[in-house]
């Protein structure tokens, strides 16, 4: 069912989704779990959000989908412009119309979003019927087509299987089939491969990439795996304790990492190549919402922290004119060499 509305995505270069200044707080918490997050994703491109457990990746994604429990959560500020509308300001009904159609989401654990009492065929058909004026037979044909596209073997048979009859990798394929059934403009995937084995993960990432090429769907992929980011992202946003601390194209962030957290994270991943010595570490741990420091939230763990860092939250800024456009970092001391001198590499 080709979309007749592709033109609405806007001219190339214009973002499909622009999130601006999102702040969220949970009832009774001392600090915002998401604090002034701004992001954007272009049509057909992939934005990866990467960061440590608890840094606010899922909360950000859920808020875009209108799935955040409000209360206890409260959206303090922010706009999420998508196809001319603010997703954060939509009514429940308007969101219901967009969700599963223009924007869809895949979760880490497929069993939480697949209904155990319906067959996978019925579940895919259901989501098509909810948004399209077509008959049951056509919807079932669409379900079959989708299972085939996500490369489920023997799709005719699998159509009548229940979720528990499928393996983890197969369920994740079904989730992807459901999410893409209505040709969404934007797919938000929250750790879609974290629960899977690497050989299955490779198959799923490859599938996502192929489907994206075919359909032109934009993707926001949440992960904590820098390998996955390097593999699939066009742009990256590194989050730390509720804030975006660095963002830019995938090559600029990996080749010219600016934020001490990004640098620490990259150098604490062991490599598949020959061992070169003990791993660099990021000492300490992520602050909890109740012990959130003022100023730069990374300061308690940062080897470069100084007084200036603790005064106020460093804004996301471009480091210098020579830097790749769009590459921004929230660090008082970036680029580090100017203050801390070079090291012979």
């Amino acid at each position: 069912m080709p979309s007749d509305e592709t033109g609405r995505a806007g001219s190339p270069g214009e973002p499909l989704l622009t999130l601006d200044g999102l702040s969220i707080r949970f009832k009774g918490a001392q600090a915002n779990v998401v604090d002034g997050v701004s992001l954007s994703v272009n049509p057909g491109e992939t934005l990866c959000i990467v960061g440590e457990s608890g840094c606010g990746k899922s909360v950000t994604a859920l808020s875009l989908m209108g799935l955040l429990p409000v209360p206890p959560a409260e959206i303090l500020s922010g706009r999420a412009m998508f196809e001319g509308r603010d997703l954060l300001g939509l009514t429940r009904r308007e969101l219901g119309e967009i969700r599963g159609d223009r924007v869809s989401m895949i979760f880490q654990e497929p069993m939480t979003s697949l209904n155990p009492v319906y067959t996978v065929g019925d579940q895919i058909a259901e989501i098509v019927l909810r948004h399209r004026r077509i008959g049951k037979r056509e919807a079932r044909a669409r379900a079959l087509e989708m299972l085939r596209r996500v490369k489920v073997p023997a799709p005719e048979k699998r159509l009548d299987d229940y979720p528990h009859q499928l393996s983890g990798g197969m369920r994740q394929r079904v989730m992807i089939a459901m999410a893409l059934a209505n040709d969404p403009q934007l797919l938000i995937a929250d750790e879609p491969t974290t629960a899977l084995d690497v050989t299955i993960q490779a198959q799923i990432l490859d599938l996502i990439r192929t489907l994206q090429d075919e359909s032109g769907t934009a993707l926001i992929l949440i992960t904590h795996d820098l390998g996955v980011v390097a593999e699939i992202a066009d742009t990256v946003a590194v989050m730390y304790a509720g804030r975006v601390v660095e963002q830019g194209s995938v090559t600029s962030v990996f080749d010219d990492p600016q934020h001490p957290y990004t640098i620490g994270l990259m150098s604490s991943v062991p490599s598949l190549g020959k061992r070169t010595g003990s791993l660099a570490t990021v000492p300490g741990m992520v602050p909890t919402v109740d012990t959130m420091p003022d100023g730069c939230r990374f300061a308690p763990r940062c080897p470069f922290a100084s007084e200036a860092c603790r005064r106020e939250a460093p804004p996301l800024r471009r480091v210098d004119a020579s830097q790749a456009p769009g590459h921004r970092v929230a660090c008082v001391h970036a680029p580090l060499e100017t203050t801390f001198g070079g090291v012979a590499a």
Partner: protein
Amino acid sequence: MNGKGHDNAGAGAPARGDYVLEARDLARRFKVGSSFLATPQVVRAVDGVSLSVRRGETLAIVGESGCGKSTLARLLLRLLRPSSGQVLYDGTDISDLPEREMRRLRKDLQFIFQDPFSSLNPRMTVGAIVEEPMRVHGIGTRASRPQQVADLLRRVGLRAEYANRYPHEFSGGQRQRIGIARALACGPRVLIGDEPVSALDVSIQAQVINLLEELKAEFDLTLVLIAHDLAVIRHMSDRVAVMYLGEIVEQGETDTLYDAPLHPYTQALMRAIPIPSPRSRKVDSGLTGDVPSPLAPPPGCRFHTRCPLASGICKVERPPLATVAHDRMVACHHWEEARAGIPSAAETPAHSHAAERRFALYREHSLAGTAAASDRTP
């Protein structure tokens, strides 16, 4: 500093006495299935595994979920009894040792669990958790033990005052440190870690990996490491055994195995790892299909349903784990052909010059600040 670089790692076949732990044709089956089924089904979780752990080495066991890694680890420590086969500790068969005698050996053989959340008793203080094995094995006295607990906590990077707190007050990384302190409490000789860092975030994972390496050297331990992260394994281990559906399919010295994996499954695993560098996009295991159910493993070679090299013989005849070079074993009918398809982990591209320079700067400054940081952070 760690197991790597122990010069006995690859030098000549070790003498009998150099093995701390040995598995001989070890198997463990589980009956599963609902009570409604007339005939319960059988999972061959570990099926004919032979393996030797050398004194002082770090041996890693790698494989995907459900392949039997945890079962093998539990068998090696006799936390589970084998259905058949033997486990030897210091050359003595412990497979049938009565529990009473086993208890003495437990002092030597300790386990670190994967899940730092469920493996610590929530009703015990951290101090009591770490002290328990000392009490059980009669180490120290009631008066001396609190001091020993405090020393251990400090050694794993926690504050001594934490002894009075409860596990729920700690993060995943801290709980894993508590688990490690407990495992060290009675002076073990062998430590088996079942995915000891898998549940942790990267930045915390690196802290725990470095800690394990330091402790290994300091306490003269032999380490058996269960993991599914191939990069962590390369970093930490001297030798590697690769498992698939209850069997070992390849085994060898770490660098050799990574530089030239011979089994098609090992090759697929290597290819599937996403490399954290956007210059090397390639992830594609070259495999299709899912991991078969361990309830109904394929006949012949268990990998044949997914193997790009499978031929007629693979479907009917189980390939034995055969020695193909010094300290190198492979279970594949066509390993010589497979050799042509070796992917190379060594191709991992270096980081950009700018990135390397910042990594160096980061290291220099974090070393400079280590003393201050360890005061400030638990």
